[in-house]
């Protein structure tokens, strides 16, 4: 299967992040690893692009964040933990319905129903 690159993910990355965070709060690094675990070969994500997606989600109040206190004592960079909000859960449920409709419609048009 051909790998899915960053450009093809445009518009879907936010929903992927929401679905990863549904499993629990995570750092940016953990989010990237969870995505990698689910599709190690197919998904070729430029990992830096996760952060703009997280910031957009936070502006829309779909995700909340806080500094990781365990990590803040060290002199290294500070870590931020992201977690899904109630609005984020609702948005994820809507995104799943929209995706199923999208796949169903395009699948029929392409002659390859889901």
């Amino acid at each position, binding site marked *: 299967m051909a790998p899915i690159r960053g450009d093809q993910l445009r518009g879907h990355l936010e929903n992927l992040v929401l679905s990863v965070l549904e499993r629990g709060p995570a*750092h*940016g690094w953990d989010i990237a690893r969870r995505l990698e675990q689910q599709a190690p070969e197919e998904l070729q994500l430029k990992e*830096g*692009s996760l952060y703009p997606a997280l910031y957009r989600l936070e*502006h829309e109040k779909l995700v909340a964040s806080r500094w990781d206190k365990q990590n803040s004592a060290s002199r290294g*960079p500070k870590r931020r933990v992201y977690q899904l909000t109630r609005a984020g859960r609702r948005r994820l449920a809507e995104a799943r319905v929209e995706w199923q409709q999208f796949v169903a419609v395009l699948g029929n048009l392409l002659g390859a129903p889901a």
Partner: protein
Amino acid sequence: MKALRQQVERVVRPVRASQATKDRMREDLLEHLQLLYGKELARSGDPVVALAEATRQLGEPQALTRDLQSSVSRLERWAMTPLAGTQVSRRRPGESVGRWIVRTVTVGSLASGVALAVIVFLLAALRMRVNRLGPVWPFLLTNPILMWVSLVSMFWCCELIRRQVEIASQSGKRFSRALRIAGLVIAAIAIAELAPVVVIGMIWRLSPHPFVTTQEAAIVCLVWAGIMLAIFPIQARDWIVAMRRYERWGSLELNDPAE
């Protein structure tokens, strides 16, 4: 590792956003890049290969900059639009603190002197207080000079406080450092408050027809003193944050090859 910070700074420096937003972007990306580098170093054992692979996985800097810029709200982007001439106040990589303070305060004092002259002559043109205006040149001359002295002293006090704070954070002698810091704060406020008093005094001394009354001069001094008392702690804290940011990020040269 400097090369990792340089890579992050290449991405974040061009983004038009507040310093707080950019600091967060830097921390997030640096943490991620360090972990990528550690993973690749464990895999290959070669620091050069690990750096190249980690930066590749993070993404192309210009694309990331665009992506980060799109995550900044329009209002914040608009508020951070660089105004003509404000770039002068930015500390250049490699520039000493003293030179930076003198350069920026000199430019600021001259600009304020010119602005004040324009205001005074406008007031005169509008015939406001024209009967009391008299020779205003002592005021116009002394104001930028005293503003210069006042601001250079205050910023130097901020810098001395910062050095004490940095030493205190690394050593155990916190109490004696705290006393020195308190002394410097008082000195800075005293110096800054002295400026308007001296300005008014010089106007009285030099001008045969001062265009402000004693009461007005006293009000100016009191208001200035209040403003200085209120802003100095914030100024000192901002100074420490700004200098730490400069040392960690702003001083990085981005044109040299990654080390």
